[in-house]
């Protein structure tokens, strides 16, 4: 394998590793076969595994996720692609009512080991119906695990954990990260779901970020370092299970907290993180908490408008500066 791998290649590599390991893993989705996916995140899978394991579907999001559920209930480990995360709304019944509830309402009789992969988030100028960060939608539903990797190595490691999980996982691949590069992980690299990572150490403030907001937080931390402010950056990696112990441990070192999230402030995951901190870690704080989040508007098209709406390095830097002066 090459010395570097892109995030988009890591998606296909992560799936391929699991398909080689377990014959029960099958893929379905729109344009995922010979076309290799509209984002080329399934490139090579059709060639290696053939049409019996990589299935092109009609544009039928309900059928895709519903069929994945039926297959998962009966012995397969399907990996379903919903092309853009905005389209999760087209099959929301399955994500909100069927998949996360069937184990519970049958008293534990049924297991649904499936992965729903989807391209999430803004930054590419796709307009309001192809650019949303929707991870907070899934966060409102008990019974879904939520993974959102920020690096190629994590894509592969978390894909392995997601496909091997006996529980349903919604796997958010960030469109803004697809071209980013990193080291390919070793064989059988698995990143347990629900383990956050401290990706930069610092003593003055904790920045908690997810997916495309991780590099934003890291760039902000580099700028702040020039001003003598040492920011620690925590990559949450998953929203469910949520690793609050890593966040609280970081906060014990820094005493200041900023969440950096792309989804709208209203109902965003940062609110959950902050509420747990208020509940269990209030004594660790020397300052108020701050949330840098998306504005509560549909994602606009023009770069200048989009930048106004989603978190940027400048916004994070300004927020941290204010907070450290508190």
């Amino acid at each position, binding site marked *: 394998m090459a010395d570097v791998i892109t995030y988009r290649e890591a998606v296909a590599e992560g799936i391929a590793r699991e398909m080689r390991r377990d014959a029960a893993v099958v893929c379905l989705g729109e344009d995922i076969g010979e076309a290799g996916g509209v984002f080329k995140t399934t490139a090579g899978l059709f060639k290696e595994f053939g049409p019996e394991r990589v299935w092109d579907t009609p544009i039928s999001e*309900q*059928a895709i996720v519903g*069929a994945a559920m039926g297959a998962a209930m*009966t*012995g397969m480990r399907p990996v379903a692609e919903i092309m853009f995360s905005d389209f999760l709304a087209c099959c929301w019944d399955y994500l909100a009512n069927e998949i996360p509830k069937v184990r*519970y309402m049958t008293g534990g009789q049924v297991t649904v080991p499936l992965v729903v992969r989807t391209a999430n988030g803004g930054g590419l100028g796709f307009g309001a119906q192809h650019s949303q960060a929707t991870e907070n939608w899934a966060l409102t539903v008990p019974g879904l695990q939520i993974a959102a990797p920020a690096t190629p190595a994590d894509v592969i490691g978390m894909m392995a954990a997601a496909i091997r999980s006996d529980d349903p996982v919604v796997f958010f691949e960030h469109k803004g990260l697809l071209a980013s590069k990193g080291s390919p992980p070793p064989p059988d690299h698995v990143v347990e779901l629900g383990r956050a990572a401290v990706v930069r150490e610092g003593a003055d403030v904790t920045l908690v970020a997810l997916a495309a907001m991780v590099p934003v937080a890291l760039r902000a931390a580099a700028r702040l370092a020039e001003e003598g402010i040492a920011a620690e950056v925590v990559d949450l990696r998953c929203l469910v299970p*949520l690793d609050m112990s890593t966040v609280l441990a970081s906060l014990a070192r820094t005493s200041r907290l900023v969440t950096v999230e792309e989804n709208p402030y209203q109902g965003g995951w940062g609110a959950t993180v902050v509420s747990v901190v208020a509940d269990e870690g209030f004594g660790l704080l020397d300052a108020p908490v701050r949330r840098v989040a998306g504005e509560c508007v549909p994602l606009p098209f023009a770069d200048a408008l989009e930048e106004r709406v989603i978190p940027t390095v400048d916004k994070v830097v300004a927020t941290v500066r204010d907070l450290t002066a508190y």
Partner: protein
Amino acid sequence: MDSAELLALYEQMVLIRRTEKAAHDLFLQGLVKGTTHLAAGHEAIAVGASAALRADDYVFATYRGHHHALARGATPEECLAELMSRATGLCGAKGGSMHLTKAATGMLGSYAIVGAHLPMAAGAAWSARLRGTDQVAVAFFGDGATNIGAFHEALNLAAVWKLPVLFVCENNLYMEYTPIASVTAVARPAADRAPAYGIPGETVDGNDVVAVRDAVAALAGRARAGDGPALLEAATYRHFGHSRSDPATYRPAEEVERWLKHDPLDIARGRLTELGVSEETLTAADERALDVVRRAVEAAKSAPAPDPEQALTDVWADGSAAWRT
């Protein structure tokens, strides 16, 4: 069908009718909360279809699914205990009337969002094909589901992938409170749509257990042989309203009378009599079923309520409900 086999199907239908009557009575006594969607009148579809299926085939049902759960191996006792919120209920009292499920016998659930389970059945059929078995999956649904997007998505996917799945519509003429004919562009809401997907669309007297058995056997055999999905529209009628809050006064008296005379139990009884089965034998079958249900009611009544801590289990496969690590 010989008389012994038909007698067994008849007794199963009586058992379901008696269980539904018990559910109705227990509701009126305040022992069943929420709601029930009784399937009295639909028995021949569940029993006839089950008789045509193998034990390892998959069944997906709707919120009106008591008859399918019972036909696929759930006992009256575990079903009634579930309705009565007892710990011994089929789903540990976490599901209730609308979610009766017995996965161990292939009864993969009752789903209360109209039409949602049709793609799931397609998925189970896909899984059977991927695993190289010759199992089939069956989705039972009401006429109202034929106007839901998931119906059309499931039919198209099943057809293009040639999946071993049967879509069985229980057309009882009413979509909840509204006549299906008044909101549907074609006369036969299920069967008339089949040609659009290039699959067989057949109709059957859903109150004749033998006719249902034969129709499902033929279509399941076809699916098992690799010839793909089919749609079966079974004409039937609800003896009760849509749910417990519905007295069904919107139905014309003449229509109700006509359908009550076309009762699946009477039809099976008539066939048995023609086959030379005595009145005593039939009455004995009635009594056996009644006795099973009577004992089921007593057992469910004396079963304990679930431990409240059970509310915090079974979200995840490890049994827990933890959302943090």
